[in-house]
């Protein structure tokens, strides 16, 4: 059966890329996009950086608008899916599809109790509120030292706030590995950030607005503004009872398929590696790569090229521009391909220079395509 009516659920980069891919594949049927947001698709990436500092506005981060023939329905949330009748339910009525792309992404994970109005950063609304809160605060406590938490810490420091980051492990090691993670932390510390590593969970104190955390040993850390940056939760509640396999996200196969004529892409997914292992990659490039593979699978079935992650992610903080390709959390000391971390600009490879599985550029102006070419040839140049 040929697909004539495609419905895309979601209003961000995975949804937008799916629409673009349909058009690039010369799909000439109808495209309907259901987004529960009140603004057209924008990029979240600058929300922890320029938009939070106040140098950019939400208008600056809206992505190029969709083509006129795409029916974008804002403030329309999908509330249920019926796979047998190929229907997505919304408060304004059912929407029928013969091909469905699920791209409902994630939302900020919260630590606190329901009566606590926790500060998080995921949407443009969160960003506007956090910017106002930052303006009124002199001290900031960031709970969580991943990319997002450390970027918020960097922005708050740029604005002259007193900043503490608390995490269960040394911030960034799990992502960048100990060598680069340690380097970023030392730059952050020199910039005046206090980093607290605690053994065990933290409890959020204060209500309705949190005022601090308590560590397992009873130590209290307090601040004018407490921000939780503890990861994200996939938006899958609307799929309850639909038969879609959920396991910390929508489980997708190597072609991003979920069910007959249903595919999914982006932060909402977990990828089944076939050996029972599930991996999640909540980054921009993955959302783009998956959306493309998902649309190809929707239109061409088994003959479509499978999803192949380009494994590229980046972070910007404390004046450091870090670009990374390959496996996360590289172990051991890197081989230096160029420059040096001490001098501020470096190109690093793990485990060695002949067959790297991870390459990281720190303040090193190498185009990502070139970084990818440095990766172990077998991984980079697998046939399409």
């Amino acid at each position, binding site marked *: 059966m040929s697909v004539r009516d495609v419905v895309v659920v979601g209003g961000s*980069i995975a949804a*937008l*890329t799916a629409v*673009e*891919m349909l*058009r*690039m594949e010369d799909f000439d049927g109808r495209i309907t996009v259901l987004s529960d947001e009140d603004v057209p*698709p*924008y*990029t979240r*990436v*600058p929300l922890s950086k320029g938009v939070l500092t106040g140098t950019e506005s939400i208008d*600056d*981060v*809206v*992505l*190029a608008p969709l*083509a006129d023939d795409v029916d974008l329905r804002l403030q329309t949330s999908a509330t249920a899916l019926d796979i047998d009748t190929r229907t997505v339910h919304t408060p304004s009525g059912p929407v029928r599809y013969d091909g469905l792309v699920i791209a409902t992404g994630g939302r900020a994970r919260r630590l606190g109790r329901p009566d606590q109005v926790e500060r998080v950063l995921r949407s443009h609304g969160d960003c506007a509120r956090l910017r106002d809160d930052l303006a009124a605060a002199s001290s900031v406590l960031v709970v969580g030292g991943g990319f997002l938490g450390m970027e918020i810490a960097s922005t708050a420091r740029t604005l002259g706030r007193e900043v503490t980051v608390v995490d269960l492990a040394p911030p960034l090691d799990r992502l960048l590995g100990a060598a680069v993670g340690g380097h970023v932390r030392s730059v952050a510390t020199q910039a005046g950030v206090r980093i607290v590593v605690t053994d065990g969970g933290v409890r959020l104190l204060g209500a309705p607005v949190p005022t601090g955390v308590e560590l397992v040993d009873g130590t209290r850390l307090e601040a004018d503004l407490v921000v939780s940056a503890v990861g994200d939760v996939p938006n899958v509640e609307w799929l309850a009872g639909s038969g879609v396999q959920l396991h910390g996200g929508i489980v997708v196969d190597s072609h991003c398929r979920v069910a007959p004529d249903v595919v999914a892409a982006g932060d909402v997914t977990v990828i089944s590696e076939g050996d029972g292992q599930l991996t999640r990659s909540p980054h*921009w*490039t993955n959302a*783009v790569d998956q959306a493309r593979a998902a649309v190809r699978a929707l239109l061409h079935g088994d003959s479509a090229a499978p999803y192949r992650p*380009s494994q*590229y992610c*980046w972070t*910007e903080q404390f004046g450091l*521009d870090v*670009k990374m390709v390959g496996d996360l959390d590289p172990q051991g000391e890197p081989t230096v391909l160029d420059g040096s971390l001490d001098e501020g600009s470096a190109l690093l490879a793990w485990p060695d220079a002949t067959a790297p599985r991870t390459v990281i550029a720190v303040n090193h*102006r*190498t*185009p*990502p*395509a070139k970084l990818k070419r440095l990766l172990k040839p077998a991984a980079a140049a697998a046939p399409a």
Partner: protein
Amino acid sequence: MRIVADQDRCEGHGLCADTAPEVYDLDDDAIVVLRHEVVPPELERKAEAGARVCPVAALRVEQIGAEP
């Protein structure tokens, strides 16, 4: 159609060039450069697709002759 690239915003992630290498390129400093002053009609869809994947929204699509 014309693409307007804000080179100050560009951070060299290269998604535009991955999507539409006929339209976008990166220079030695990994900053976007446009291959065409005016996008040839047959490349318009790809050019738009490339503009929409920029994570820092550094690329704008302009219809020539249309009011801004």
